[in-house]
């Protein structure tokens, strides 16, 4: 019977405080709450009461509406950006220098000899068809040619162009060409024929508006196939060595030499050398702006030793990047021209972003569904690495072999013409596939902390006419220990890389809406419209519990009433008098229980109790509400 005791006690509490009925409860609440509006409803006269009731409702709805807006704002996870700019001691960027040409021609000549003879003969035929008499003494390796042939497309008739193979059909086509004037020769276009299998009909022709491009593209495809068979250490040997390329180095006031550079093999540019990569040693700091305190380099790109058909632009390729990141020279690299001094002022442009849920970026790439192939270089994640890895993975999946320009996944070989005859066709269709690109774009995410190096580039002629002589002498002596000049203007480059007066610009994000912000805004709104606080909400909750209690009491009494009626129906008795009824209804619960003589009746001491509140309104109420009940009785 503990429960009963508890119930009774709770009822007492109700009686002392909010009262027995909903109305009493409401009036009590309005009178005692700390929220500002309800008190007024009770205190004012009838007209004003109405106004205040309306106002309170209005304010309450306003508060809820604005709370909705605030919570929405909070859940949209906005950020505020702050920008700072100035000079501070910063890590000097990693500097990658490469030669635009990947290998020394003198070293790769044995490999590319056949190819060069082929392209020379082809150009001969294309450009000078009139004297195409075969003066070539050794026979051409036409098998190599036929793997990926170049064709001429005769577009005199727009609708059915005639395709002419340069070496096979030259007898018939060549005769026609001789008599043509320059205007009609323009109608010929050079194209690369790509077949899925050698000799199969499934072929595409890659059209080029310019023959120069066609030749370059063809040469790149062919040389890729040849070079991919060469093991890595041989390729490194064929490239430019650090001691040949980096002639002088000065960082601030400290001398440095080629040993301070880390060698990395880059498929596009052969051997590249990275200064201050930070892989083994601490990254260098620079605490002064200006060219005096930067990195000064003198490079030799030995232009005479370039592969003629592979890269037509000559110069050094260089790039500034973060420590421990892979240099993607094709994307972010810049050229430095031979025979000039190139000065590069650096501004570090940093972007620090909040991760999920504020923005869709990745901290270290671990949550990106693409296997990062560049992790074999121990480099950090970057979007370029992801895109390239994504492409290579697709390539391996579809063509069965990896492209020479990208790192290899485990257990896969590079593509070449012998083992994978259709690779060029496969690669070309994959490269131009928009779907593949979209998949990669969708699956790769950019990094949250992005550092870019903004460069101000200026150039001057170097060395000057007057100083040319002695500079060449000294550099030649230092490199080759010879008294003759082994360098020339076309190979020598001077580089100055330094911090500008303002060396950093940082844009960092911070959450615009925190939970503290949310709470204070919610409190502000509630306080502004209704003068309320969290305690008012607690009060409100209390009232709801109380009203639940009242409901329970009503239910109990209603149930009891039902029981009584049933009992009376079974044993028809003298109907209760009106006064009995009235008494029963005005004193809910207690008297009934006692009157019924339930089993717990004896345990209850006669409750002295406070008398019920003596408002007329309150006293009238139970009679009104219960009158239909009594009528049915």
């Amino acid at each position, binding site marked *: 019977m503990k429960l009963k005791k508890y119930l009774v006690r709770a009822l007492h509490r109700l009686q002392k405080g909010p009262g027995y009925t909903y109305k009493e409860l409401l009036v009590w609440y309005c009178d005692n709450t700390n929220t500002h509006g309800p008190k007024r409803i009770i205190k004012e006269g009838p007209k004003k009461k109405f106004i205040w009731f309306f106002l309170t409702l209005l304010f309450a709805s306003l508060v809820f509406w604005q709370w909705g807006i605030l919570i929405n704002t909070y859940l949209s996870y906005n950020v505020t950006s702050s920008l700072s700019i100035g000079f501070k001691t910063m890590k000097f960027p990693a500097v990658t220098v490469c030669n635009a040409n990947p290998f020394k021609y003198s070293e790769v000549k044995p490999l590319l000899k056949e190819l060069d003879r082929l392209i020379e003969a082809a150009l001969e035929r294309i450009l000078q068809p009139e004297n195409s008499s075969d003066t070539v003494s050794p026979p051409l390796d036409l098998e190599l040619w036929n793997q990926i042939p170049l064709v001429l497309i005769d577009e005199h008739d727009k609708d059915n162009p005639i395709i002419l193979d340069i070496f096979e059909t030259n007898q018939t086509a060549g005769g026609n060409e001789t008599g043509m004037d320059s205007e009609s020769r323009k109608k010929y276009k050079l194209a690369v024929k790509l077949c899925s299998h050698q000799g199969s009909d499934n072929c595409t022709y890659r059209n080029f508006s310019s023959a120069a491009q066609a030749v370059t593209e063809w040469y790149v495809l062919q040389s890729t196939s040849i070079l991919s068979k060469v093991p890595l250490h041989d390729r490194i040997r064929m490239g430019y060595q650090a001691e040949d390329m980096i002639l002088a180095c000065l960082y601030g006031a400290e001398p440095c030499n080629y040993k301070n550079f880390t060698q990395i093999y880059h498929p596009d540019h052969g051997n590249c050398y990275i200064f201050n990569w930070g892989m083994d040693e601490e990254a260098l700091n620079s605490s002064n702006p200006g060219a005096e305190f930067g990195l000064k380099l003198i490079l030799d790109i030995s232009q005479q030793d370039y592969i003629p058909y592979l890269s037509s632009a000559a110069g050094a390729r260089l790039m500034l990047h973060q420590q421990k990141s892979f240099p993607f020279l094709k*994307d972010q690299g810049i050229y430095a021209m031979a025979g000039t001094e190139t000065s590069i002022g650096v501004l570090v442009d940093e972007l620090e972003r909040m991760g999920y849920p504020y923005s869709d970026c990745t901290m270290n790439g671990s949550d990106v569904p693409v296997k990062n192939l560049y992790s074999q270089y121990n480099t950090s994640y970057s979007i370029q690495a992801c895109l390239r890895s994504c492409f290579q993975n697709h390539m391996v999946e579809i063509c069965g072999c990896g492209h020479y320009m990208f790192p290899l996944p485990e257990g896969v070989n590079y593509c070449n013409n012998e083992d994978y005859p259709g690779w060029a066709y496969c690669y070309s269709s994959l490269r131009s596939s928009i779907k593949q690109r979209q998949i990669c774009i969708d699956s790769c995410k950019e990094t949250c902390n992005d550092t870019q190096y903004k460069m101000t580039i200026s150039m001057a002629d170097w060395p000057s006419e007057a100083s040319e002589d002695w500079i060449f002498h000294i550099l030649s002596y230092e490199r080759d220990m010879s008294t003759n000049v082994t360098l020339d203007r076309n190979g020598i480059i001077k580089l100055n890389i330094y911090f500008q007066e303002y060396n950093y610009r940082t844009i960092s994000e911070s959450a615009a809406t925190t939970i503290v912000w949310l709470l204070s805004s919610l409190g502000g709104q509630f306080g502004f419209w209704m003068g309320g606080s969290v305690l008012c909400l607690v009060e409100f909750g209390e009232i709801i519990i109380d009203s639940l209690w009242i409901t329970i009491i009503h239910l109990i009494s209603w149930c009891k009433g039902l029981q009584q009626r049933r009992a009376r129906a079974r044993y028809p008795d003298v109907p209760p008098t009106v006064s009995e009824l009235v008494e029963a209804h005005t004193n809910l619960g207690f008297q009934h229980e006692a009157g019924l003589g339930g089993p717990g009746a004896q345990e209850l001491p006669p409750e002295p109790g406070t008398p019920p509140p003596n408002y007329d309104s309150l006293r009238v109420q139970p009679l009104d509400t219960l009158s239909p009940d009594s009528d049915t009785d």
Partner: protein
Amino acid sequence: AATAPGKKITARLKRTLPVRGPQAPTLSELMRWYCLNTNTHGCRRIVVSRGRLRRLLWILLTLSAVGLILWQCAELLMNYYSASVSVTVQFQKLPFPAVTICNINPYKYSAMKEYLSELDKETKKALETFYGFSEGKSKVRRSVEDWNSTGSEFFQQIPLLKVEDFSRTATELHSGQKRRVEGSVFHKDSSIVNSGDSNDIIGFQLCDANNSSECALYTFSSGVNAIQEWYKLHYMNIMAQIPLETKEKLSYSADDLILTCFFDGLSCDKRHFTRFHHPLHGNCYTFNSGDNGTILSTSTGGSEYGLHVVLYIDEADYNPFLVTSTGAKIIVHDQNEYPFIEDIGTEIETAAATSIGMHFTRSRKLSKPYSDCTETGADIPVENLYNKSYSLQICLHSCFQKAMVDSCGCAQYAQPLPPGAEYCNYKRNPNWMYCYYRLHEKFVKEQLGCQQICKDACSFKEWALTTSIAQWPSVVSEDWMLRVLSWDKGQKLNKKLNKTDLANLMVFYKDLNERFISENPANTLVILLSNFGGQLGLWMSCSVVCVIEIVEVFLIDSLSIVLRRQWQRAKKWWSHRQRGRAGKAAQGSDLERQGHDNPSPVSMDEDLPTFTTALRLPLPQDSPLPRTPPPNYSTLRLDTAFSEQLPDTLELGQH
């Protein structure tokens, strides 16, 4: 009888609209009532506190809290229209911008010969006179006479002059005669300060044709500038008379300019370029102009996937006086933007590969009331003469052109024509040069008001360019490259292209990150209100309800009390006057009215009944009426206890 219906109406009004206000007949009572019953925290303390010092303290505290609230809320209001900047970076497929490419030389010199031969002859003569053949004066004079007989008096109108600085005399080019310089002297070069020692400053004089005494002399410290400027003036005159179709023919065709084209790994040709005639640069070609409805986009960054063109710059066909540098000019812009190639173009060197890496930034500012920028330019009172979207540059140029047409009667050659106007030339507007120079000077000094009228655009796109140059073609590839390119060009094989006639250009995205800088309102109304609420709640635990209370008590109730009192006083004064005149009759009516207004016996002293007390039944404290007793909550009882207790204690303290 006349007053009876009025009284009835008022009586009925009072019955139907019972206004129950504070139970206070006087202002001080009202204040006490307010302080005790208000929801704000400070006021109650003032009334409840005992002791003068403590009360004073509470008054001070309350007042300072009110002051703080007012101050802070004013701050909040003032900062309402502030904007916060947000930077978002998004990696995505980016639209490729339009790239406009021009040859620096506008028209083929060989084709322009027939129009420019006289001007060139004149220029050469000037060079001879001033620099080469100063001794052969007679020869020059003779040729001048020959030339004069051909009838080109226009060149004579604005001759080059050699000015002797101190004597302020000028030697004329043709006649060699000296003339005194009148009017003001304008120096176009800033280095004029230390040019006092040289006595051969070159310049030209522009005079108002209607009023020859008004002249302006423009001098240059260097003859190079003087001759170029002078040449340009005459050149613009000549070009203004040639119709557009002819000019387009005189300039380079797409086939002339573009040798090879490669975009996003695919070949492209002249169909991808749109011609655009620029008055100063001749035919320019815009790649990806969006004219055919599609805008190309790239989904891969890097130099392989951008635009790669080889340009043919025919150096031999350059105009020697108009342009002194060789190469091409390019500008990267949005498809809707007008390419101001003369203002912000990047120059491309010949015999070199120029690689331009782009980084895309989009910015957006908030327009009024946050900042003074314009969304579409529709609210700017300057007509947009270019059929492109609004930009500050367009507005300034249009504004200047409009001023030019208004004051000089003709339009400047370098900018588009407003409707109904035509370009200036000697024949129709002999006066225009003087007018133009005057106007241009005014424009630069911001006297035309263009800089005030024109606002910057709210949103703009920017491509930050990183330009680097490599040697091209390399020594070893030069031979085959030039041969193949010559074949492409379809020239005779024996005439190989020269590498100084070629320029290689690569334009590509460095990365596909779009940086979007946008301004957002730092405050919304919701946040402003919650900040208000925070301030009000912090200092006084006040809310809008309190504000309404304050309005109710301090404006409506107290005003009604004051008005009531004034009304009573006026009435009293009136009745006194009436009594003084008419005696007892007036007094009676006054009493009668007073009795009606106060049905209860509360009015006992001079404190006349207020509006509220008049309508209301007696005050609850005094009323012995057998109504329902007040609710017996302890809080309420405490209130009344205080209000009863307080006056006594206070009076005790005062005594």
